[in-house]
């Protein structure tokens, strides 16, 4: 075999290996989804969705878990969106290049790398203990808000950065103030990108279990929360609880709850991808 033949052979071999690796991830994903569907689909019915938790697997439902997840989703959105967007706007439109903006930037990228369980420890000490919120929905939502804040800030900045200078100049030329320009021109023009980031961040929050376990969210909550100061559970914690039990019936429950959880996260991600797609098509600066 000549040298160039050998090289061509190696080239082809890597191509095959590359295809295998690429499809490995996809195949695992497929196996996984099919396995979950087979195990859990039969368990999903109206009763499962509307029943309270129970010590008996066949009577247990996810009513408190999915209502808890919904509560957390809404509260986290209410807290994190204004804060994150405001911080993003400040960093992109107001902050002068200098020490402060440098520190802010490094700090935010550091926060994005802090493990979620550490946010749980922060929430436990600050919100649950110091502010005496207890293991309430509000404490959970505050903790998750801090967790997703860096994601919202970074995507807000990117969306705002994509708005061309000329739009701002035109607005200023017509006599608008800085805030008028941001509020009436820059934000409307970048709302698609900002929404995409917010939805991706919220879908992350919906899937988190670790920080909420640390702040003391329970696995067994026999009532539906009616206010933000009540104790709660969420779908990921309910799944974790069921997976940890030895009886096979609870594993089936876990699979069924996973289908519901994945439905929610994929739905959120789908909306985000659609928004990004629409934004890319619509905007032609």
């Amino acid at each position, binding site marked *: 075999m000549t040298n160039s033949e050998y*090289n*061509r052979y*190696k080239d082809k071999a*890597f191509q095959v*290996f*590359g295809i295998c*690796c*690429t499809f490995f*991830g*996809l195949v*695992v*994903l497929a*196996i*996984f989804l099919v*396995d*979950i569907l087979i195990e859990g689909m039969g368990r999903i019915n109206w009763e499962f969705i509307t029943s309270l938790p129970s010590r008996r697997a066949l009577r247990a439902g996810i009513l408190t878990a999915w209502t808890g997840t919904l509560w957390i989703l809404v509260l986290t959105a209410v807290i994190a969106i204004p*804060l*994150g967007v*405001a*911080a993003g*706007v*400040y960093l992109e439109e*107001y902050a002068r290049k200098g020490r402060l903006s440098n520190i*802010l930037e*490094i*700090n935010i*990228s*550091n*926060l994005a*790398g*802090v*493990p*979620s*369980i*550490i946010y*749980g*420890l*922060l929430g*436990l*000490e600050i919100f649950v*203990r110091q502010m005496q919120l207890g293991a309430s929905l509000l404490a959970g939502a505050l903790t998750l808000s801090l967790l997703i804040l*860096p994601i919202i800030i970074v995507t807000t900045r990117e969306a705002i950065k994509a708005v061309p200078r000329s739009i701002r100049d035109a607005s200023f030329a017509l006599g608008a*103030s*800085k*805030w008028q320009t941001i509020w009436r021109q820059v934000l409307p023009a970048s709302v698609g990108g900002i929404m995409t980031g917010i939805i*991706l961040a919220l879908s992350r929050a919906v*899937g988190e*279990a*670790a920080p909420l*376990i640390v702040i003391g969210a329970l696995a067994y909550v026999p009532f539906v929360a009616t206010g933000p100061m009540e104790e709660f559970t969420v779908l*990921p914690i309910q*799944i974790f609880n069921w*997976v*940890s039990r030895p009886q096979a019936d609870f594993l089936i429950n876990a*699979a069924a709850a996973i289908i519901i*959880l*994945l439905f929610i*996260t994929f739905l959120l*991600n789908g909306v985000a*991808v659609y928004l990004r797609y629409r934004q890319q098509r619509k905007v032609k600066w």
Partner: protein
Amino acid sequence: MRKSEKIIEGLLLLSAVITILITVGIIWVLLSESISFFSEVSIFRFLTEKEWTPLFADKKFGILPLVTGTLLTTFIAIAVALPIGLTVAVYLNEYAPGRMRQIVKPVLELLATIPTVVYGFFALTVVTPFLQSFIPGLAGFNALSAGIVMGIMIIPMISSLSEDAISAVPRSLREAAYGMGSTRYQTAFGVMVPAASSGIVVSVILAISRAVGETMIVAIAAGQQPRLTLNPLVPIETITTYIVQVSLGDVPHGSLEYKTIFAAGITLFVFTFTLNNISFWIRKKFQEKYD
């Protein structure tokens, strides 16, 4: 400038400054609770004892078993994710037709959006039984399957970031390699990957940091037995699992057991903080080499 404009700017600045307060809060919370922990247990004992049994009657406070558990699962995860993720990045960049890349990339990224508790279920109920069918002596809870599944979760992280790094290498370098008669393989591994090496290293460091802090997969599938071992077939416990384990029990606030989760937390934080800053430093230092 009008007064309301000033007020708005102030509010926006306040929101930005909150991010600094979060960091300060994290460090303050971890430090204050751990300092009070270390006043009862010396740092020397913490770092050198070989057993971790704070919840037993005979208490030992050696963090090493939790650290080795964490590093073991992390190592397995990276051993899975690095070769596959890097190969995918190179393949999508140098070999795959453009259409395929457009379809495959978002689908792979779907892997990163699945909640980790779901991966834990997968590790425990699918991967472990599958591995047990040909690895005799594999325990029901083990570092191996938790690590493998964590690796699968991390693949898109490495492949996406590495792909970005490779596609940022100027076209002229690739064309020069082809002009000299290189095959795609030679171009990829002789020119493109070395040129993108800092970006690839950053992706791996961030992946390690992610794996070190990952909680639910290991809490579900790797066990809750702190053990000073590098054997991937037996149950172990990671730092994160320990924090979850204590949080699930009812340890009284202010007790020594309660403070252990903050001592474990600060150990974890030191690891991820160091890794993140190394990656930040590499990015800053090598960023504009080819511009």
